[in-house]
């Protein structure tokens, strides 16, 4: 496709954001009736729905772990989510590396189902954030939130939270998931070429993004619980 | 009479090459090649068997063929069946009831007679794994070319323009009984029997080669034991 | 019409005139046939109503039910139970084997907790047992806790067919070796 201008000279991106600016994030928990915990998150035009069932009995005897719960993640994409429609195979598993107190539920299973309704870049980060919110909504004890965000590098300029256009052009795309309290990296995955010296700056920009997301998600959780508390108090 | 890859006689076999116990995770492994066509075979067993294929009074023999290129297709399934039926009678599976013997055959390079290379490779691998066996198996392939003479151990070119292909496998007992006979193409009865005769003599040479290879390996191991 | 052949769903009469025998069913006051077969009207002394039964022509393959006598082959033995593949139910062979289990507490009626399963059954024996319950998803629960139930045919280690000498011993005619089985009283 024609080399469209991803970064204008005065530093603005295709959708008018500054390089280190996140897309608009809206999140909501307990959206579904049947699931034990559920969450819906919108990052720009990427919309993901997460549902959590568990901890519950393990379905296949073979996989039982005597000392902790096994986490089973299933991820599928709605056919109308991307620009051209294709039916994806159902089981392309994403290992999201979420840190749970799994040792508290031995010999059990926690299922996380992720459903991408609309895909405009940064699907993995949206899924991880949605899964975290759903797990919190399900009341499963966790060490910390897991917040993920992507960052890239266009003409040597680190850029935060890539959308579909920036992602499909050959620019490198780094997804980082951290535990905000300790700042430790839980998951990191990088695609297409990025010079090693740029790694540090792009990674730190992504970590900043994660912290911003953490504050937003934390705010959402707190005021839903507040809302719950008030309605109970009446 | 000149053959396409420089061999002079019809019954001349290409250079054999064999090496044993080259893998660590398998109980026994071996690589065997007739000239260019090479096959690596590995044997694991006797191991735990799935309830589904458990046999009360003998070991279950499972054989998997992995082609050189691409995913396994129906052609490899036919190869699997032929190899399993050739090799299974020689294993004394009665001594290891309710266990699994898993043989994996990885075809490295195809240049003519893959079926017989695989049989020889499995033979060596089972020897290396120390399975109780009633006899060894050696196999040679013969083709009849348009000029009606019998060529042993064909290369892929000779295989292509052959009118019929015959693969035979014999055990190394005194009576050399036949374990595998796999023929394709149009041929007359006596052509079939003369091919069998030629392959029987050739397989004696293969048996001799296997014996010397194993002897060398064991002598080398004894030396290592004495020296260390 | 001495013997008329009926097909399933064919009306046989009013429910109050007859009692429903085997092969028939009653719905909304009417009696219907439920199998293909010959209609028989039987007069029996007890109830003044005649009973209609359908003698089946098409034999349905047998299904083990509670109380039916079965013959089967022991497939696997472990300390808690011996698993049986059921071949014959109440003298009708079933086309495909059903899966049954003789739990250790159902092997015999006397000294039930001192039973050693390997002294009662060995894989390959043929046993006659009785179905005591539908059991779990995989197998029916069987019992050999009667004299005429237990092993009726067994091969010795030497491969000969053994002869039962007592209710718990069998002898190989060739090697005279005694092996322990829970034998059925031969009748």
């Amino acid at each position, binding site marked *: 496709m024609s080399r469209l201008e991803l970064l204008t000279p005065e530093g603005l991106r295709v959708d008018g954001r500054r390089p280190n600016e996140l897309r608009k994030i809206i999140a909501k928990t307990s959206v579904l009736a049947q699931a034990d915990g559920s969450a819906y998150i919108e990052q720009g035009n990427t919309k993901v729905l997460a549902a959590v069932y568990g901890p519950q009995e393990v379905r296949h005897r073979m996989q039982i772990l005597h000392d902790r719960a096994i986490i089973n993640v299933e991820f599928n994409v709605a056919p109308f989510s991307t620009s051209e429609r294709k039916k994806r195979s159902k089981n392309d598993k994403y290992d999201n590396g979420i840190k749970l107190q799994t040792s508290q539920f031995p010999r059990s299973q926690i299922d996380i189902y992720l459903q991408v309704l609309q895909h405009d870049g940064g699907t993995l980060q949206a899924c991880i954030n949605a899964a975290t919110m759903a797990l919190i909504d399900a009341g499963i004890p966790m060490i910390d939130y897991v917040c993920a965000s992507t960052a890239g590098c266009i003409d040597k300029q680190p850029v935060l939270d890539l959308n579909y256009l920036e992602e499909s052009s050959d620019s490198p795309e780094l997804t980082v998931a951290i535990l905000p309290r300790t700042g430790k990296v839980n998951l990191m995955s990088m695609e297409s070429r990025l010079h090693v010296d740029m790694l540090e700056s792009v990674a730190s920009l992504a970590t900043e993004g994660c912290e911003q997301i953490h504050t937003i998600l934390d705010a959402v959780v707190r005021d839903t619980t507040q809302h719950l508390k008030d309605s109970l108090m009446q | 009479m000149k053959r396409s890859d420089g061999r002079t006689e019809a019954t001349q076999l290409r250079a054999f090459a064999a090496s044993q116990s080259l893998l660590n995770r398998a109980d026994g492994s071996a690589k065997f090649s007739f000239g260019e066509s090479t096959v690596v075979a590995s044997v694991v067993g006797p191991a735990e068997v799935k309830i589904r294929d458990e046999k009360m009074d003998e070991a279950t023999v499972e054989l998997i063929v992995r082609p050189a290129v691409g995913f396994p297709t129906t052609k490899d399934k036919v190869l699997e069946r032929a190899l399993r039926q050739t090799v299974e009678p020689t294993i004394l599976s009665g001594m290891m009831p309710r266990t699994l013997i898993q043989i994996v055959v990885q075809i490295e390079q195809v240049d003519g007679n893959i079926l017989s290379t695989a049989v020889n490779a499995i033979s060596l691998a089972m020897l290396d794994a120390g399975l109780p066996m009633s006899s060894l198996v050696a196999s040679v392939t013969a083709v009849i070319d348009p000029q009606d003479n019998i060529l042993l151990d064909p290369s892929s070119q000779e295989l292509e323009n052959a009118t019929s292909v015959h693969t035979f496998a014999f055990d190394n007992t005194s009576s050399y009984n036949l374990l595998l006979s796999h023929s394709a193409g149009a041929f007359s009865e006596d052509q079939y029997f003369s091919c069998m005769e030629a392959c029987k003599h050739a397989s004696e040479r293969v048996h001799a080669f296997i014996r010397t290879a194993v002897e060398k390996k064991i002598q080398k191991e004894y030396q290592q034991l004495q020296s260390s | 019409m001495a013997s008329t052949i009926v097909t399933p769903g064919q009306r046989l009469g009013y429910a109050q005139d007859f009692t429903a025998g085997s092969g028939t069913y009653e*719905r909304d006051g009417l009696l219907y046939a439920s*199998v293909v077969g010959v209609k028989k009207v039987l007069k029996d002394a007890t109830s003044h109503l005649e009973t209609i039964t359908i003698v089946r*022509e*098409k034999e*349905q393959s047998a299904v083990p039910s509670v109380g039916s006598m079965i013959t089967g082959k022991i497939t696997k033995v472990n300390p808690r139970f011996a698993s049986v593949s059921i071949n014959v139910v109440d003298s009708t062979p079933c086309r495909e084997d059903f899966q049954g289990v003789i739990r250790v507490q159902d092997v015999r009626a006397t000294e039930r907790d001192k039973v050693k399963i390997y002294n009662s059954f060995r894989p390959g024996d043929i046993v006659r047992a009785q179905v005591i319950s539908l059991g779990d998803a995989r197998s029916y629960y069987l019992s050999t806790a009667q004299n005429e139930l237990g092993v009726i045919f067994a091969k010795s280690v030497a491969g000969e067919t053994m002869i039962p000498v007592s209710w718990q011993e069998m002898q190989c005619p060739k090697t005279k070796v005694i092996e322990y089985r829970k034998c059925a009283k031969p009748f």
Partner: protein
Amino acid sequence: MDRKRVNGPELSVVPVEEHTEEKQILDSKERRLDGRGIDDIRPIFMKSGLISQANGSTYMEFGNAKVVCAVYGPRQMKKPSFTGKGVLNCEIKFATFSCKKRRAFQRDAQEKEFSQILVQALTPAVRLDLLPKSSIDVYVNVLENDGTSSTLAAAISAASVALADAGIEMYDQVAASSIAYVQNKILMDPSALEEESEDGSLVVSYMPSLNEITHILQNGNTESAIANKAVEQCIDACSKIYSVMSTVLLQSLDTSDK
């Protein structure tokens, strides 16, 4: 890509014969292409007990369409789960050569749905509560398909006879028939040709002596009055087919006595 079979080239297309002139489905005297009246059923040939291995089986021909049905069971369930009642499993498969367009070996969406319909149509008639923990498997193979909806109807009738032939206790036989709406006329038992130019079709499976409809399937839009009339016509046809089914079962008795 099916690795278990030798596959031909991926994209091969049915040769398109160029359009001969539009054939007249109904001529002036309300006669159809094969000479039948609008509510005549094609001649039915049915024979039970042909497959030695099966408990019960039927071979059925109507016109030049051919269906074979085999019943296995009652036997142990493959995926054992404790159920108080027996379970009926049905599988219908169109042979690859049976239709105008070649069908694949694996079962496609339509065959999966027809198998589901077969289960729903037959279950009300079978006394499953007498066979706890066991399953009855019905396998239907369509050898030649002359009108998909009439083949489905034939499969239901053949399966019902096969169940009776297997000696399984049943409340009643299930007969099924189908009609096609062509230029707001109702054509009984449509053939493949008539199906191509139909506006809609209806399949009704019916238990004549218990007077209960076990399954109904209609597509294409019609006035509700015509739909009701069509259902009645189907019910009459089912009673006719029911008599054929009974005679087949009676005949199979005489042969088995010899």
